[in-house]
């Protein structure tokens, strides 16, 4: 078949070409793909080849989609090696002058934009990869993702469309339709809501997580059954700043299959077949997991409540003197309305904060808002926030 032409040569299969850039200097070397070694060894190697033994480095690489992703532990190091074909392009920065905002953006975008999360869906059963652990949240930008894999039936998929700060339209349409349900009385045809169309280049299409004819089951944790098309439209628009849709994909072949002994792991799939990572999402948010302390305002971009809450903090007030300010929160507020987020927004940061690096701190332990009345709503908070 045609595919044979694309099979890489033996040389590239066994070894990885590395092109490392630090400042204006390049270094080229190769690594054995089968024995990449540990990250600290690799880090030492880099310091060695660039002859910068005592410089603290931030290591990044360009992934297949052109995104700059960090290498700072064994797992993402192994990942970087495994996806490099044939060239692994490294970018080194001094830690003290690192430009965090470059990470995770399309700074390295090439003409052909493929979709980061589409990796999840690529059927790729031939290669068995070591389980990949997601790295620190600060090393990633929030992207649209599949969440709550651990609590949903395998036939369903809960997708968070993370629109934050992007110019892309959400870019999909919904329609009425009918679906078949299994009931005690046998099969029954019931009305349902379906995705009818994707706008090319829109967020929904570019994530690859939603497809035409997927049945919409929930919007932000609330079932849509019995609701009209217009009602569901209004619900989605009202939640459009943080839209979480649970769908039953029309194509059931790409479902994420959980291993039965899963320890509550969330979807961490970077491969076509996501396996249980063995490390739960919450693990990252225990105080002990907080490694790096960064300025507080950066954290907030990853505050779970920010993702959860909507546009609140972003209502704008222009006072008589004409200066635009985001609406601050009243001191007494949090006690009366638990769903409100509890931090001061910094709108001026927002432009640079889009996709900026951030790190986790202990403040992230408040993953789920305590007393939300609706069960459905608490569901949506259980999920992973960031998945690659």
């Amino acid at each position, binding site marked *: 078949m045609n595919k044979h032409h694309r099979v890489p040569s033996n040389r590239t299969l066994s070894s990885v070409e590395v092109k490392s850039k630090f400042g204006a200097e390049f270094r080229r070397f190769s690594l054995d793909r089968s024995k990449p070694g540990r990250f600290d060894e690799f880090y030492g190697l880099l310091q060695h080849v660039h002859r910068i033994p005592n410089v603290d480095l931030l290591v990044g690489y360009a992934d297949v989609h052109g995104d700059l992703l960090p290498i700072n532990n064994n797992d993402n190091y192994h990942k970087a090696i495994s996806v490099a074909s044939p060239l692994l392009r490294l970018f080194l920065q001094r830690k003290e002058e690192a430009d965090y905002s470059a990470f995770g953006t399309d700074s390295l975008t090439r003409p052909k934009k493929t979709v980061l999360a589409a990796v999840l869906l690529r059927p790729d059963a031939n290669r068995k990869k070591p389980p990949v652990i997601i790295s620190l949240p600060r090393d990633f930008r929030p992207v649209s993702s599949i969440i709550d894999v651990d609590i949903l039936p395998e036939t369903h998929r809960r997708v968070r469309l993370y629109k934050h700060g992007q110019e892309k339209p959400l870019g999909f349409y919904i329609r*009425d339709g009918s679906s078949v349900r299994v009931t005690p009385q046998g099969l029954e045809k019931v009305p349902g809501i379906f995705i009818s169309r994707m706008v090319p280049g829109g967020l929904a299409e570019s994530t690859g997580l939603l497809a035409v004819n997927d049945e919409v089951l929930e919007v932000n944790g*609330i079932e849509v059954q019995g609701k009209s098309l217009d*009602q569901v439209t209004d619900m989605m628009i009202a939640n459009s700043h943080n839209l979480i849709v649970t769908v039953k994909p029309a194509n059931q072949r790409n479902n994420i299959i959980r291993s039965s002994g899963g320890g509550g792991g969330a979807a961490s799939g970077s491969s076509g077949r996501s396996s249980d990572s063995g490390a739960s999402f919450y693990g990252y948010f225990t105080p002990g997991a907080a490694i790096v302390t960064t300025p507080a305002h950066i954290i907030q971009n990853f505050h779970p409540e920010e993702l959860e809450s909507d546009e609140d903090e972003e209502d704008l007030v*222009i006072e008589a003197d004409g200066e635009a300010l985001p609406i*601050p929160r009243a001191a007494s507020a949090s006690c009366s309305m638990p769903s409100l987020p509890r931090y001061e927004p910094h709108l001026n940061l927002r432009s640079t904060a889009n996709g900026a690096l951030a790190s986790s701190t202990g403040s992230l332990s408040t993953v789920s808002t305590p007393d939300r009345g609706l069960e459905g709503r608490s569901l949506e908070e259980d999920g992973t926030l960031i998945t690659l």
Partner: protein
Amino acid sequence: MKRFRRHGQESQRERIKQELYGFNKTVEHGFPHQPSALGFSPSLQLLAIGTRSGAIKLYGGPGVEFMGLHDENAAVTQVHFLPHQVELVTLLDDNSLHMWTLRAHHGVSELLEIGRFTLTGPPGAPPSVTRVTAVLAHSSGDLLLLGTEGGHVFIVKVPGFRELEERNISLEKVTNGVPEDYGGRRSLEHVESLQENPVNPRQVLIGYGRGLMVIWDLDSQSAVTHIPATQQLESVWWTEDGGHVLSSHSDGSYCRWKVAGDDPQSEQEKSEVPYGHFPCKAISKIIQLPTEQGPPFLFLSGGMPRASYGDRHCISVIHSKTHVALDFTSRIIDFFVIRDGPYHTGEPSALVVLVEEELVVIDLQTEGWPVIQTPYLVPLHCSAITCSHHVSAIPLKLWERVLSAGALQNTHYSKKPWPMTGGQNLAPDPPQRDLLLTGHEDGTVRFWDASGVCLYPMYKLSTAGVFLTDSDPNDNLNQGTEGEWPPFRKVGCFDPYSDDPRLGIQKIHLCKYSGYLTVAGTAGQILVLELNDEAAEQTVEATVADLLQGQEGFRWKGHTRLEVREEPVTFPPGFQPFALVQCQPPAVVTALTLHSEWKLVTFGTSHGFGLYDYQQKNNVLVRCTLNPSDQLAMEGPLSRVKSIKKSLRQSFRRIRRSRVSLRKHHVNNAAKLQQANARLEAELAEMELAPVQRKIEPRSPDDSFTGLVRTLYFADTFISDSSHNTPSLWAGTNGGSVFAYQLRLPPVERRGEDPVTAHPAKEIQLMHRAPVVGILVLDGHGSPLPEPLEVAHDLARSPDMQGSHSLLVISEEQFKVFTLPKVSAKMKLKLTAIDGSRVRRVGVAWFGSTRTDDYGESGLTVLTNQGDLHVVSLPGVKLQVQYPCIRREDVSGIASCVFTKHGQGFYLISPSEFERFSLSARCVVEPRSLVEVSSETPSTTLPRALPDGASVERR
């Protein structure tokens, strides 16, 4: 322990909620949509109206109302009361008969369906055999005679609906006795009419469609007399002395037949075509009633000359030398005559006519036969309703002034009391005087007494006089020419034709304390009116408000501004306009508020909003809210939007046109028609290919109509600093923006000279960008600020100015409370994100507890686009209760909803009917009435106890 206590609090809250809230649809005001049948019980003095949707409504004296609904969704074709009883029978379009009764329960009568029945013919018989066309409720009260399309008469025992087969009068039995010389042996056709002999209840008259009438003896089961009419029969009337039969026919003629004695063959005494010479339309119903002295009254419906007046809806009343053809506004459904006397057998006193759009009652005992004003069934829609406004607890002074202004307008009505007196109204007197104001398409505002069960017209205000319109006010004076034949006289007030759609009223605001009223219309006109007890001649000063404020590059493609009369206009006593603002561009006014204490009016359109000082008669502020890229809003109503509906309509027009030309020219027709059909088919196919789908996209500032002003609000609050409260103006737009202005008013003594100023204080942009539909300031206690002048009149507690105020912004998607003067989010309630419904209408109401008089709570009454009603507590913005109320498909019903300040509301269930509902457990206005059978039953020898006659079937 804690949980336990909390539980206790919750159950206590539940109990309080039950004492505060309760949902009831209480009464329907207005005229039933599409009435199809009329019935009347002289003994009960009740009239019954059946509608095409299967509703049956009973009305007696004012306030006595009952309503029932058939399970079948079929039109009611006939309604008959059983003589001297509280039962009535309805015949539906689906040939089923239903028995209803008024049963007393806890001292209040209820209308209940107690039985149903469908005639079953012999096996194998065609359905026409049992298709009921005529019904006679026999005066014995236990027999029902049913004439059918097949020509048979079935006799049924009621109330149980037991068929008395052996007594049926089959067509064969009758045909055998027909004299040989009567037009061969052709079929007699269906039974058109059944009449009982007024002096001998054992005799009934059967009128067949072909014209033959047979007097049948129920005891001997044989024909007594044959009346050999040969014209198609329309209706039959047996005169009160039993000596004559009147028959009306399809050719516009009526005949009188003498039927005295046992003469087997009756002879024709008289035959007349009242509007004769040229072909006439059928006389569908004929009634003749005697008077004490002098000639009888004769009532004929129809019979007009076909060519010249075939489109008129007329009832001719002939009495002695007087002959009037009452010319009604719409199709006549049915009519009956009310008679004086203890047994309702005396002089005819009133003619009651049900036409398709109204009920007209004519006083027959007053010279000139004036119309009696109806206390109910008023055609709300005499011109289409375009908006409504409710004002609770009107001060007596204003009430009386409005009433007296209205009385001057109603001088042409009869002074006689309402002739229908059935039942007792047991509803308690309304606790307060409430006004409902409806704005209409023709530029009128009607004031209704909405305090009780009857929505009674009080006063009508017309704004058309201020403007120059194409219509000639003398248009209607060209009637009543000497010697005109037929002698027409227009009756009724239904007039759906608007002279100029720009006159339509869109927003109304009345200050009940000062008597100032402001109304705004379709062409951007805002009138300020004041109540004056004297007629006055004055010029109305017009001010133009340029809402574009120099925005360039736009061209308004909508209607033009109304032209104002420059010469002084005489205004009758009542509300008289004294100031006029005209928006430029003249887009429809979308928000309007009046503050009578500050003498300011604020108004908004899709382009911006303005503030007008009606004391100094100048604009204080004009603000453009238009998004420069919003071409759609700029150009006027839907100038660019090409709807599918429209294109479809055009396609049909094309077809029709081609069909017309087909008839006219006989050329090329088939090809043309085919072409048009193909085009239509292609368009339809295109529509089918594109399924109904909805785009999911967050709102953007570039959306259309984001600048449309949805709500305007005046408040005396802390807008800029927390120590000084000042007057302020708040505006909310479709794009989720709130604009706040601080107002500076000169001291009272300088109010006429010093200018009022407005300074921008705040702008809030809600990030979810949903339309802002309500703005409210809550005082230090969390209560809504009182209305202007309310405190001055000692009718409200002055607001708490010590504690901090808060601002409640209600968008279509959520309720959000902010602090003041520094605007920061305090709490909110999300609606759309949770259940997908959006706020359509919102009002502030006071809910009193049913348990104690001194407890009550303020709340928001909310109607969503799903037709659900919610109550949201204040100041905590928590959802309290939720009731489904209106079908979500009923968009016009939802849009027409108006809330009262005491937890009630109204919405249109048809163009002509308001449904009244109540969300308050304490404040409920509903009919409570009792109907009893009078114990004295007139002896059977008394002539004609049932003058209502059988309803002529309409289909």
